[in-house]
């Protein structure tokens, strides 16, 4: 049966623990992500979201626990290993260089090469053409490939970064709070991009603390609290209020919410 292979998670994090000196940042977190799904990782500040995805992307080595990628246990020594394996991370603010053109940003670190008389040159025509095509398919109109990234809005920058990761063969795309600094319109653009990427069969790990954004695109939701998972829920099995409660640790928020009139 082919459902078996379809339902093989592309990456499985088993019982991950991470200690920084005497601080236990992660105390046994297990999450699995399937191809073509958007797995939302929710949690309040300090819940361990960042530590967890940094473990996944090879920045941190887990103190304890296993990472199984495409069925094999993996040991990432540094981020380049995980990038090579197909795990791409788009960080909130550190994705793009504002003074460089969109095309040069897009191919940064992966510059296309054209040899002239044996000397490798940067293939500008190729880079410009691909960049324009990719941007068009993501719905961004550029003045030209030489336009500086600094002139793009925050949402467009996130989209360029996502398009870049997808173009260079990401199988797992980790998005670290891509919407937290964006306006309404830009947020919906980024969410639409996430949806497009997911439909291409790429596994998306979407980190956020905004329940609304998570529910808009998420297939499954895992809530982290104080370095532990509070369980994973399927889409449709959980209401926004329940998610919100889990994130904030239940009781305290309930009393707070009463005084705020349910606006949080």
């Amino acid at each position, binding site marked *: 049966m082919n459902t078996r292979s379809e339902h093989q998670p592309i990456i499985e994090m088993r019982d991950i623990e991470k200690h920084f000196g005497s601080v236990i940042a992660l105390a046994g977190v297990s999450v699995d992500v399937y191809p073509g799904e958007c797995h939302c990782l929710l949690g309040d500040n300090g819940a361990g979201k960042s530590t967890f995805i940094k473990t996944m992307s090879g920045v941190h080595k887990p103190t304890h626990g296993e990472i199984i990628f495409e069925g094999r246990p993996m040991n990432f020594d540094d*981020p*380049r290993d995980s*990038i090579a394996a197909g795990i791409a*991370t788009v*960080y909130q603010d*550190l*994705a*793009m*260089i*504002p*003074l*460089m053109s969109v095309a*040069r940003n897009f*191919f*940064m*670190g*992966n*510059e296309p*090469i054209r040899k002239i008389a044996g000397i*490798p*040159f*940067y293939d*500008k025509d190729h880079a410009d*053409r691909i960049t*324009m095509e990719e941007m068009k398919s993501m719905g961004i*109109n550029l*003045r030209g490939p030489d336009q*500086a990234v*600094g*002139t793009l809005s925050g949402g467009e920058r996130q989209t360029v970064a996502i398009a*870049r990761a997808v173009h260079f063969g990401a199988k797992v795309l980790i998005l670290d709070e891509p919407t937290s600094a964006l306006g309404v319109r830009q947020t919906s653009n980024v969410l639409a991009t996430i949806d497009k990427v997911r439909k291409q069969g790429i596994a998306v790990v979407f980190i956020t603390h905004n329940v609304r954004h998570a529910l808009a695109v998420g297939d499954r939701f895992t809530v982290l609290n104080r370095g532990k998972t509070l369980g994973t829920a399927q889409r449709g099995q959980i209401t926004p209020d329940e998610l919100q409660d889990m994130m904030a640790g239940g009781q305290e928020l309930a009393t707070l919410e009463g005084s705020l009139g349910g606006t949080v």
Partner: protein
Amino acid sequence: MSETAQTPPTSDERIKEMSGFRKALIRPELGGICGTVLVFTFFLLFAFDSGMFNSQGVLNWSVVSAQFMIIAVGACLLMIAGEFDLSVGSMIGFAGMMIAIFSVTYGWPVWLAITVTFLMCLVVGAINGYIVIRTGLPSFIVTLASLFILRGFTIYLPQTLENKTIIGGVRDAAEGDWLAPIFGGKILTGFFQWMGDNGLIGTFERGTRAGEPVVDGIPMLIVWAIILIIAGHVLLTKTRFGNWIFAAGGDPQAARYVGVPVNRVKILMFMFTAFCACVFATCQVMEFGSAGADRGLLKEFEAIIAVVIGGALLTGGYGSVIGAALGALIFGVVQQGLFFAGVESSLFRVFLGVILLFAVILNTYIRRMITGER
């Protein structure tokens, strides 16, 4: 190609059409080009008859400009990679002195003296870079330290070894050496003789060299400047490594995330700057036939000013080698031009300060335009 041209690009109503002027303005070379045109117009008008534009005059300011260009290329690439090197001037003095000590005091063959000096300079450059990368300190401070350390040695060594601060006799030592002409020689001498014979350029009218052209060839210093400018420009704009230089200076962390070896790029750029300083020093020693402990004083600032006039941002990530070369040309032409025009030469510094201020203000404005900051 033709397909993309046929489909009219759906324009975003929020993006204003850029005027040609603004488009030109965001090219880093623009300031340098305008300055060059301005400077040449000025001196053509006011100093044309002074001999500034005959063969000897042209050679005079070309050599001075080429000196600035050589160190400006190195400083430019380093600045785009996000770092400074204040030790360039001291490095020039140090390299020249080492060549003189090796070849004159120790009697080594000149090619060996030059080769060993180049290696020493590259090592010093690499150490500068390594310390900056390892400690995360501003390169300004680290290279300020090397400025004093190198200058100190440049004075101490000849005083201890020879009891003087100028070592001469390099020209005699370089006689018949195969490597020395690459730095101290001249090219196209036949062509200049031909031009002299045909009355296109001035010739000596009497004396032992009667009939020979006053300018008998293009010094290798100028050739080095042109080679370094072309190599630097191609490296920066046409290669993968060039993209890494921009990335390392623009945002090192973002560059690291996508796999750019930022540390390696920066250290290599420190080494390249040291290499350029060493080229300068070698050409100078071969030309003068001596090395002095005070050579290269303040050159680091002149290099940085040329680069900034050329449109590079002090914060890194943006700039152009061609711009830096034009900045150096402006520098050389004005410095020598004021002399030809009979203006008090101390005014050169006033000019320098004023033009630097203008360049920095213009660059800040340009950066705001590129990044859309307000």
